[in-house]
């Protein structure tokens, strides 16, 4: 098992960062921290995916110094395309979540989600 982990060190690191991001997103009370955790989680997945496309000794999938491509010269282009899509998705979500954070701060004057929820419950009980 251990040699497998060392051999796949990019994937291992990606999973560890994914775990840290996952826990930060789930448990941290601060919304900004949650968003950073979400970004960690997503980039970790992209690292995982991108390392799947790498083939040692080959180069980036752009035609170089030849007219007809040689298969053994280039790495796998599929993961790169998927990650490119994913990065844009995650920046969209970051912007959306940050906008919600700004609005929440304006309404409740804090960024602590637990505090916000307890304030909301208190208001509801008062009604």
């Amino acid at each position, binding site marked *: 098992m251990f040699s497998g982990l060392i051999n796949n060190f990019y994937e291992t690191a990606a999973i560890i960062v*994914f775990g840290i*991001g*996952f826990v930060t*997103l*789930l448990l941290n009370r601060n*919304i900004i921290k*949650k968003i950073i955790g*979400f970004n960690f*989680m*997503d980039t970790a*997945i992209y690292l*995982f*995916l991108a390392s*799947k496309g790498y083939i040692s000794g080959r180069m980036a999938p752009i035609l170089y110094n030849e007219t007809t491509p040689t298969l053994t010269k280039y790495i796998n282009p*599929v*993961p790169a395309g*998927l990650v490119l*899509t*994913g990065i844009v*998705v995650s920046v*969209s*979500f970051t912007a*959306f*979540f940050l906008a*919600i*954070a700004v*609005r*929440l701060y304006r*309404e*409740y004057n804090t960024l602590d*989600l637990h505090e*916000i*929820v307890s304030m*909301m419950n208190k*208001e*509801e009980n008062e009604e």
Partner: protein
Amino acid sequence: MDKYYVINDIVQNFPFISIILSLFTGILCAAVKPKKAMGICFFNLIVCFVLSLMTLIYCINNGDYYVYMMGHFPAPFGNEIRVGVLEALMATAFALVMLLSLLGGLKHIFHDVLPEKQNYYFLMMELLYTSLIALIYTNDLFTAYVFVEINTLTACAIVMLKHSKETLVATARYLMMSLLGSGLIMIGISILYDITGHLLMSNIKESVVALAGAGQYRLPIEVVICLFAIGLGIKSALYPFHSWLPDAHGSSTSGSSAVLSGLVLKAYIILLIKMVYRVFSIEVIRGSKVLDILFVLGVLAMTIGSIKAINSRDLKRMIAYSSVAQIGYIYLGIGLGNDAGMIAACFQILVHAFTKPMLFNTAGAFMDEAHGSRKFKDLVGAARKNLWAGIGFAVGAFSMIGIPLFGGFVVKYNLALAALPTNRAVLALIALVISTVLNAIYYVPALMVLFKKTSTSSKIKVFADKNDVPFIFSNGVFIICNFVLGIMSPFFITLITMGLNKFA
């Protein structure tokens, strides 16, 4: 060329046209005034309904599925969508439900959403519909991921469009849980891509079956199945991950609640069913332990969701918790692991999609009578002031409880039949009985409160709110649909069976 790729009928283009049309008209909504955006949205939904219905009829006549290439390259090189009876049936039902939910909640949409942002409501709804049908039709895992993200974003947006503090908090929690789910789904797709080398469902299935046969990568496949089940479970509010649902569905405007509970949750479950059949193959799934987990979680959801609903003092929250319980039925059916259970689960998707939006819309109508309050104590006698909504609520409640003539009964009957031959029969039957009793315990008192005679509403003065014609219309159609689903259930079950047979 494969026979499934041949396009020789104009009808075969319709699923693709409905996806692109809703996307395009959705984008256009950003540029126009709210009333016009509403017109575009309804026009698009009606067109999509007609197109999907024609596709459904074509598929029934044809008796087979076909694959539509999105581009010039066949699988496994390009994207493609796959159209069969089940997909077309769901797309038709979803278009109808969305149309009726929007009509029913129209008054509230124009009341709850700020005037300058109303066109964005219809934009989000259209793009939500795009993502729903794309999720239903797609045959490619990564496309599914992209449209899951669109679905999440638009679903959060229609929650937060109601201008209040409460919806903001609900949106933040909903978004957080959804992002966790998306992360798990994405990493599942990555591992699956790594061990099979494909993103297209049919090709992945071939590889997975071959790998499972050879006994290779047993652990990764097991882990990936669990990741998808948890990820989609979070997004469809399976029991331990349901914490976001009551807030999000309870606080948003009634049209949004209707669409969220009726359609958004269902799309993820349909994706899960597609994965079970078309990505992992049912044999591999049966070999893993995930069905047991889903079964147990389904049973827990059925009971605990109902108990939470009994405890709530708020009409919309009660209906939202009832969704948790109803989602439990679907997972119970999937967890049984046989075809009959899966058919019952699919039928429950249809029944719930037609019942829950009606309940939310009528709840919105009651809230008008109580000056916007959702609390039961303010809603006493509300159904007497708006009898048409009261009838709708009663029909929905009877269906949810499982009284014969309604769809809910057929679902429970079929689930019980499906459970009998399995080794989980006792637990499943007990859960069904307990959950039926619990359903009655909260829906019957709710009905009694709503129809109670009070000093101000001893006589039924008005049959319905004359100013709200769209609601009267949509409620009527919803009631008819509920009866149709209950009475003509054999027809729908035959359709679902046809579709599921072609899935495998």
